[in-house]
């Protein structure tokens, strides 16, 4: 059981870190605002989701786990809204 939790933590957090790395590379390398946003939101949503998933078995209590999940949900909400707003501003500027 302990081993399974450790394996889950290591796999999920590493996968999350990979998505953050990929998102950062995309942010630096992609040619325009919309594609950069695409790369960035991948890191936010999937990367952070995987990190939170990996940390869940380490949470000291069920409320601690709930806090981790709500942090992820809040980042999802903020990330989705902010990328919408930036994309709209970018399109208005281009038009």
């Amino acid at each position, binding site marked *: 059981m302990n081993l399974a939790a450790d394996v889950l933590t290591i796999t999920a957090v590493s996968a999350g870190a990979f998505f953050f790395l990929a998102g950062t590379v995309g942010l630096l390398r992609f040619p325009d605002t919309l594609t950069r946003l695409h790369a960035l939101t991948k890191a936010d949503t999937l990367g952070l989701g995987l990190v939170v998933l990996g940390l869940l078995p380490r949470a000291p209590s069920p409320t601690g786990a709930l806090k981790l999940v709500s942090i992820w949900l*809040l980042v999802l*909400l*903020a990330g*989705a*809204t902010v990328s*919408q*707003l930036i994309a*709209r501003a970018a399109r208005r500027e281009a038009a």
Partner: protein
Amino acid sequence: MTPLQALDAGVVALVLAVAVWTIAAREAVAAVVGFVVYGLLLALVWLRLGAPDVALTEAAIGGGLSGVLLLGAAGRLRAAGTTAGQEPGIVLRLVAVALSVTVAAGIAASVMRLPDPAPTLAPAAAANAAATGLGNPVTNVLMAFRAMDTMLEKVVLLLALVGVWSLAPDRLWGGRPGPRHRADPQGALAFLARLLAPVGIVVGVYIFWVGADHPGGAFQGGTILAAMWLLVMMAGLTDAPPVGRRWLRLVLLSGPAVFLVVGLGGLGLGAAFLAYPAAWAKPLILAIEIAMTLTIAVTLGLLMAGVPERSARE
């Protein structure tokens, strides 16, 4: 080098690099973004130093609030269009560099010359922690042992707000701050404001409440409440109140006023200014903290809302 030491070294290198980048950035907006990143990295440094209370404040004030204030200033500067003639000359720049280097060298010299171990009152504060019934030593110091500093800090906030208001032309004195925000009521921003504000208010009150025993407190909680208020105003769901309203002035004064009344009460009971009677320490501190959280939230929100630009009737 252990992995944690490598992490610390990496964060320190990043902080220094971002600091240099912020100073070297040519565009005001880029410099502000650098400053926000710098504040968030500093919050990480405070966490690694074992000071989560300072880290929370740094992230909220240094990263968030100052960043938004500076972004607004940068936007106005760009709209006003600074011309080449207004840029500081080489002499002024050199003087600024010399002053900054002198101050930095002075601070570095005094830190290097501190006796080892550095003089501290931490053991004395920890030994008397039980007197107030608070579990968080930082809140203990802020509210009991150095309460005078905390009270004056709130007065300084009020003075800052008066300074911002005083930029308003006479005919708009007491009017509504900032432009009227118009956003699509069905749009993403309005959606976020409707969904996030209730959650944010709960989080803000929670952070204020756990400040008694865990990292958190009036300032951090108040900042979150102010951010939620601003979000709702920016989404156009509500308008900024005219700054001349009596209820607004009362809320702004409530924090320092409750603090002063309790402080003078301590003096009247024969102890000292801001000395809490032992049996009443916890409820009194709680009352002050509630009033302070309200004051901080409204003051910070109005600081960001800016100078009165519209008459109260609009």
